[in-house]
């Protein structure tokens, strides 16, 4: 809580300076539809840094960090251990309201953009993103090298759902930039927040936000929602389908 307040205070203090540059961004598609044969796609985010009279004339080298966050969910990470010769889930940690998709992109390696202190405060890099765990009755993020936290990030990264790339943002001109946002086949459905943070000479000077949405359409979506919301009807339909198929087969292949 104090960390959030501190962050707010700093943002307010920096607000005066931040007014000097304005970030204008847009994504190539605000509504991505997942169809039956969806196999992943890439969105493009582009934008420009608008300078005005208040901008110090010597400030020309900008750094950008783009954070894309999918819908939040509670997740459990479990660890297997050998017990009586077989591998059993023994210990677990619960992660509370963590992004189901998380991508961090920058134009330079994260540690080259700003100081470790600011990087931590601005949640720059997967090691600095806040991932709240329930530890007993307490809620806290733990050190980046915690076994469960690093396993969590590693597994999400393997599935293409968490990623960081210190060279994904390209400046086309000193103020015009673009980056690709890869969305894998098993991308979670929901609203995605994008935060674009601007740095100059290691100092945080402003940010802007945008969003896009991933929706499932068609038959799949219908089936998934029905299964979740009308379990009983869905069960009845499945049962009827099973009986129909069985009955049809007994007619088609009837021998006597």
């Amino acid at each position: 809580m104090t960390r959030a307040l501190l962050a707010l205070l700093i943002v307010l203090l920096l607000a005066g300076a931040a007014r000097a540059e304005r970030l204008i961004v847009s994504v190539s598609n605000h509504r991505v539809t997942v169809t039956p044969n969806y196999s992943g796609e890439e969105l493009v985010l582009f934008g420009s840094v608008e300078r005005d009279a208040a901008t110090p004339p010597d400030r020309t080298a900008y750094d950008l960090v783009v954070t894309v966050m999918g819908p939040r969910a509670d997740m459990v990470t479990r660890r297997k251990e050998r017990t009586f010769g077989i591998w059993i889930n023994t210990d677990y940690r619960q992660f509370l309201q963590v992004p189901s998709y998380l991508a961090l992109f920058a134009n330079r390696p994260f540690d080259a953009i700003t100081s470790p202190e600011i990087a931590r405060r601005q949640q720059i890099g997967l090691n600095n993103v806040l991932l709240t765990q329930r530890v007993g009755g307490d809620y806290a993020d733990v050190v980046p090298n915690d076994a469960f936290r690093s396993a969590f990030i590693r597994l999400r990264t393997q599935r293409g759902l968490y990623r960081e790339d210190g060279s994904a943002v390209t400046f086309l001109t000193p103020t015009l930039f673009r980056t690709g946002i890869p969305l894998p086949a098993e991308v979670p459905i929901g609203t995605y927040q994008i935060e674009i943070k601007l740095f100059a000479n290691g100092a945080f000077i402003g940010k802007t936000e945008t969003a896009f949405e991933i929706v499932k359409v068609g038959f799949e979506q219908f089936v998934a929602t029905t299964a979740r919301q009308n379990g009983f009807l869905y069960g009845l339909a499945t049962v009827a389908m099973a009986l129909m198929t069985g009955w049809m087969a007994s007619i088609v292949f009837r021998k006597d």
Partner: protein
Amino acid sequence: MQLYLPIADLPVNVFLVLAMGAAVGFVSGMFGIGGGFLMTPLLIFIGITPAVAVASVASHIAASSFSGALSYWRRRAIDPALASVLLCGGVTGTALGVWTFTQLRALGQLDLMIALSYVVLLTTVGSLMFSEGLRALMRTRRGALPPRRTHNWIHGLPLKMRFKRSKIYLSVIPVVVVGIVIGFIGAIMGIGGGFILVPVMIYLLRVPTSTVIGTSMVLTLVTMLFATMLHAVTNHLVDAVLALILMVGGVTGAQFGARAGQKIRGEQLRLLLGLLILSVGVRFAIELVIQPSDLFTIRELGVSG
């Protein structure tokens, strides 16, 4: 052709799943079993989570046992009285099974329990069936007569009832217990249980071979329909699209399997089935004992917002 499975939440190749359904259907038609014990592991091996596999296979087994039960019904090879007593137990067992399934899933031990049950059950049943088939084969080689059936302790139990079509006089207690056990393991493991039920009914309950398969199919049908309903209502894990592809492949394959099965002798058939069951059990055992490539797993507890 890729198709996105709505509940399993992953894209699969339709033809692969269809072929799997047909292959399992062939085996099940050949041996006169539901084939759930092959289907569920196959689905797990192609990346579908054990929970979704178990829940979806239930409806697939229901379809294949319904087409089987219909043809047995026409041949008057089903004992309605015996089937209803079995069902009393079966429905109770299924409800208990689905409840246990939900509890284990919350504890994160479901996958382990599914794997363990497969190892214990399949290696036991497989080796029993294999050795029995081997002995029967030796006997026919030597030309000896099969051993005479004798009454056992089960026939001394109270609450006896006459099952007319099967022409047996039997206590309802073991029948209900068998129903409960089959319903319970069926709901947890995603199997119809035919491959256990038929031997148990023949050797323990002394049900004549004329009614045993038809009656066991009725139990399988009703418990699997009930399991589908319960899994759909409590766990929302039944993938209807996956189930439909499996059903279509399964019922087709079963017809060809049944024809192939008639060409093989009974003992050899049992030997083969025993071997098949045993190998699936061993496959699961190896999986449990060797160190997994990753010790950590993640499970999402539902997306909000």
